[in-house]
């Protein structure tokens, strides 16, 4: 299986760093660099606290089974994480990275996992090849979304970063860069397999969705500006358990054609994402838009957000507005019972919502950032928004607006 081969290849490379690194010391450049400069241990983390005002639903992270709210008024699991990374410069043009991350997982535990295990070969100062496991690159900050210190928001806006639920990618990518208008244009193309926990409203939270395909991303950086555009095309496979799985089986019996159209077995998926950021000494503005198309029961989704803030010394107060849309029923049936079932399956994926966040980030000291935020969440009528663990008493017809309070300490080391 390609995934396993890639990951084993990367892990093996990391395990062999010592002897290879020793051999590399004979190279002039590598010999000049000390041990501490060829091998580097670093890390990142967040100690998070959050409180949600709802008693009938949880505020959940994109692939988390529960969160603050109905499960418990407060929670530390929404944003808390810890990552440790080992980098090694094996040869002047060849480096290896192993990153292990502990966060609250779809399975409801904190088991550490390999989030990056890759080899990077810089063929020239313009061309680099990466092989192994790394983070998928759909959105502006997907690669480093876990590193909350490196981002201005407390967590990736779910309205956008859940449009295409991607996490780690096992495969390879090729990046090519060139100077462009006082900046740098980078084109990345790659492919492989992305595994992701299912969206909680789609099925059981621990069910896995597998995407196999490729992506193309262009990113331009110049001074305070950063712009990116990415296109991903995949084949999706997803075998939901529980009620959703039973519903799909029933649909196939009621209307085999609709059942075949609905089943998520090697079905096409396309995602397009655009992002723009301006980060200067005074102003910070970042915006993204994304859309995903599916040829299966998985509903088409769009999302966008705009975040704007002004720096006052070490403080960055900001306002962020975000919205998620779903795009309705694509598969229909002439058989009333099957059509009714399809409507239920689509309705349960209705995740439209709006949110507004007022926050402030404060640089506490070197390598540490304190973030406080209040987010107002307003699910659209007819659905549950992006909330999870919906309980009895929740009104889909007229859902209440809720508030999330966040206080996080982000750090790198």
């Amino acid at each position, binding site marked *: 299986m390609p995934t396993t081969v890639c990951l084993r290849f990367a892990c093996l490379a990391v395990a062999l760093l010592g002897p290879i690194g020793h051999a590399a010391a004979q190279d002039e450049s590598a010999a*000049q*660099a000390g041990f501490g*400069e060829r091998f*580097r241990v*670093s890390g*990142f983390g967040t100690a998070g606290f959050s*409180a949600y*005002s709802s008693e009938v639903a949880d505020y959940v992270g994109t692939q988390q089974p529960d969160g603050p709210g109905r499960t418990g*008024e407060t929670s530390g699991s929404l944003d808390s994480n810890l*990552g440790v*990374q080992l*980098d090694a*410069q094996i040869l002047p043009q060849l480096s290896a*990275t192993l*990153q292990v991350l502990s966060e609250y997982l779809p399975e409801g535990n904190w088991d550490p996992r390999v989030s*990056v295990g*890759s080899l*990077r070969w810089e063929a020239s*100062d313009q061309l*680099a090849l*990466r092989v192994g496991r*790394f*983070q998928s690159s759909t959105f502006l*900050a997907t*690669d*480093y979304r*876990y*590193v909350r*210190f*490196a*981002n201005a928001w407390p967590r990736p806006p779910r309205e956008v970063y859940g449009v295409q639920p991607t996490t780690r990618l096992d495969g390879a990518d090729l*990046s090519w860069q060139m*100077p462009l208008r*006082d900046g*740098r244009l980078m084109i990345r193309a790659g492919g492989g397999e992305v595994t992701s926990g299912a969206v909680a409203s789609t099925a059981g939270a621990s069910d896995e969705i597998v995407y196999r395909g490729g992506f193309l991303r262009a990113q331009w*950086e110049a*001074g*305070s500006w950063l712009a990116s555009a990415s296109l991903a095309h995949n084949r999706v496979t997803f075998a939901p358990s529980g009620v959703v799985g039973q519903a799909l089986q029933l649909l196939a019996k009621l209307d085999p054609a609709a059942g075949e159209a609905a089943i998520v077995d090697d079905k096409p998926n396309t995602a397009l994402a655009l992002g723009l950021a301006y*980060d*200067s*000494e005074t102003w910070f503005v970042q915006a993204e838009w994304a859309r995903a198309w599916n040829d299966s029961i998985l509903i088409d989704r769009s999302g966008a957000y705009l975040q704007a803030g002004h720096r*006052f*010394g*070490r*403080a960055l*107060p900001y306002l962020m507005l975000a919205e998620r849309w779903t795009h309705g029923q694509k598969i229909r049936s002439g058989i009333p019972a099957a059509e009714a079932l399809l409507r239920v399956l689509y309705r349960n994926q209705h995740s439209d919502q709006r949110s507004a966040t007022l926050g*402030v980030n*404060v*640089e*506490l000291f*070197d*390598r540490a*950032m*304190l973030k*406080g935020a*209040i987010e107002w969440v307003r699910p659209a009528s007819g659905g549950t928004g992006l909330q999870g663990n919906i309980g009895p008493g929740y009104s889909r017809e007229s859902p209440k607006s809720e*508030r999330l*309070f966040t*206080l996080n300490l982000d750090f*790198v080391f």
Partner: protein
Amino acid sequence: MRAGFGLLLSASLLWANAALAASAATTGEERVAVIVSASVAINQLSAADVRELFLGRKQIQAGEHTLLAVDNADKQARDIFYTGVAGMNGNRVRAYWARVVFSAQGRPPPELPASEVGRRVIERPGTLGYVAASSVPPGTRVLFTFP
């Protein structure tokens, strides 16, 4: 619940005020000098080149040498340098490198104690460093000063 939110909001405003006060009390202005070994001939190097080099976005050749950057571990020198060359304070630079490093796309310049930067620049021609302008070591040449 509402009281809890109020308490947490008050606490967050308090630490925001404290941080703003701390930023206003930043120590007095000093200058830093970007230095290279006196034995290295560099004909053309702009401040933008220095920024791109230290942010790992560009490789620059100077004669037979590929220029390499080293960071100064002294926080004040680092803040003055990166504010001058890239308009970014120390933590914004760390955030920039966190994005690059933790997505496995590169490594920051090695960080050396202030006392080691001059020695490294002299011992390894082609290395660019920055030190307090008042303590430029002999055997080096100043390319730029900030602010």
